[in-house]
């Protein structure tokens, strides 16, 4: 009788312990999933900010003036290096 009682009790305890283990695993997976969703959001946000920064740095309005200025300086240098005919030896 005692042996049967202990066996039944052990069975119940084992089933409860297995249930707790499964529940813990489920919670752990949920936590991992939430973390992955959070990381994905962070990466999307980082991607958006990096894309924004690259587009700001490469914006034509930012580059065009400096390109035109460099071109004007090059043209001025070219003009300066051309020695007038009457100065040539």
């Amino acid at each position, binding site marked *: 009788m005692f042996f049967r009682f202990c066996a039944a009790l052990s069975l119940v305890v084992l089933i409860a312990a297995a249930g707790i283990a499964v529940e813990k695993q489920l919670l752990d997976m*949920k936590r991992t*999933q*939430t973390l992955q*969703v959070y990381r994905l959001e962070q990466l*999307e*946000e980082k991607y*958006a*900010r990096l*894309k*924004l920064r690259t*587009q*700001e740095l*490469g*914006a*034509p*309005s930012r580059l*065009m003036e400096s390109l035109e200025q460099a071109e004007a300086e090059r043209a001025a240098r070219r003009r300066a290096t051309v020695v007038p005919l009457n100065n040539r030896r």
Partner: protein
Amino acid sequence: MSTSSEPRLAWRSISVQLVVTLVWCVLMGRMVQVQWVQREKFASRATRQQQHAEVIPSRPGDLYDRRGRLLATTVAVQSLYIDPARVVDSFRTACVLANALGLDPTEVQQRIIDHREKRFMWIKRRLSEAEVSQILAANLPAPEWSFRAEYQRVYPQGALAAHVLGWRDIDGTPHGGVEEFFHTRLRGQPGRRTVVRDARSFVINVLEGETTPAQPGENIQLTLDTVCQLHVERRMDELMQTHQPVGACATVLDPATGEVLAMVSRPAFDPSHPEAAPPDSWRNLSIQAAYEPGSTIKPVIVAWGLDQEKLHTSDTLNCERGAYRMGPRVLHDHHRYGVLSLKDVLVKSSNIGMAKIGETLTNPGLHDLMTRFNFGQRTGIELPGELPGTLHPLEKWTIYSTGSIPMGQEMLATPLQILAAHAALANGGRWITPHLYLGSVGHASIAPNVMSTDLVRPETTRWVVEEAMVDVVQRGTGTKARLADYSLFGKTGTSQKMDPDGQYSHTRHISSFVCGAPVKNPRVVVIVTVDEPTRGGSDYGGMVAAPAAADIVNDLLKYMQVPSDHPTQTVEAAPQKAARR
């Protein structure tokens, strides 16, 4: 003694048993009531207290130009709010917040006190990263405050194409431009998340089974070219400085496809700082200002007359030495022209010549022409607030209309309507809906809603463009638009504005110039419209708008690497260009 106490004990015992049984029955009854009869009610109350549904905002889609340059995007920012009912020490909280965010502590404290009964109050929205760090470092009691993530629209090209893009307010509501027109596609689908909170409002679980993720908005590619837009904006800024008009606008179309390459309106605003915008800067004059088109309408009238075989290229018209009585009024030209060929009527922009063409076409013919070229109707461009212009019904037309309509009076049109009509002349006679939508990026693309209608035969438009409109630039009213490297066709226009008394003003004009190049295969058509130029010596379309339009064409064709088709003009026109710069 013992005999009398026994029944009493028995009675007591029975009483106790009865009371205990009764109490148990009451408890059992209550348990049945709570667990069974009122189960639904209490379960739903518990769920209400523990579970909170949150909306997950969707990230609005990006806007790109035709070459994939980013025009508008979205970043997440933190906004700070407090729960005034939970603030224990309002003075301390106000001081900490004000110190971290650069606010006035007295004002913050007063707001907290004034909203004591509220559970939510914004302190500051769209915080910088430094401000977020300072708030976190301040260690305020957790239940008093929290951050809320919000999306902020950012325009990496600055104020470029502000009227085309529109802007979004602090709540993400779009105002004007493609932001408003495509809002349903850009906004995406907000998600929903259910969280379980404990008694202290801390989240202890997220019910993943009940979570619907947010769907980001559609990324939309526009027909605009950022570099073209920049060229046009810079030239229009220069024009605004030189002529100091009330307003000005310019639009560039690809005549073969109807794609808008650039659209500029002045005065403008910065979509990142709409609060600093001047009050008259909101209107996109290209589509939201209707004016009498003046002489820019004349090539369209002549093309239609030729196509209907009411006119012939060899026709001559007597321009009556500058004065012509038409019904009860006398029409005048700027110069006293005698007999002019049909081409010269356009080249010299003779009003009397055009009035006589009006008599040939008659009112029904003119009205039919105007309707077919979509005057009086919206073009259908993907922008909100487009004006249809004004074209009176034929029943209201009089003898005045016969003379007025061919010279661009008695009707109102937007610059875009005029440009669309000229694009039809440039592409061989096909009217195409001007449009801004090119497609979607990363989504199944919806084709742009573009209509095209053949209105005039190609041989007719070829004569109007390659003969008459080229001569307008070479020897007519548009000589200021001659280019060194490209052949250009165009038409000037100077229309009088209305005075408050309903009479035409003699001092206030709208100057315009519509042109395209290269002549044989036009790659761009441009319209520049200047509202009431006040400086620069002249307010004629040929003097104010034509140089700007020609510069725009020149810059854009060079950017598009279109080979020069007009080398013979180099010597003559180069000094003009050099002088401008």
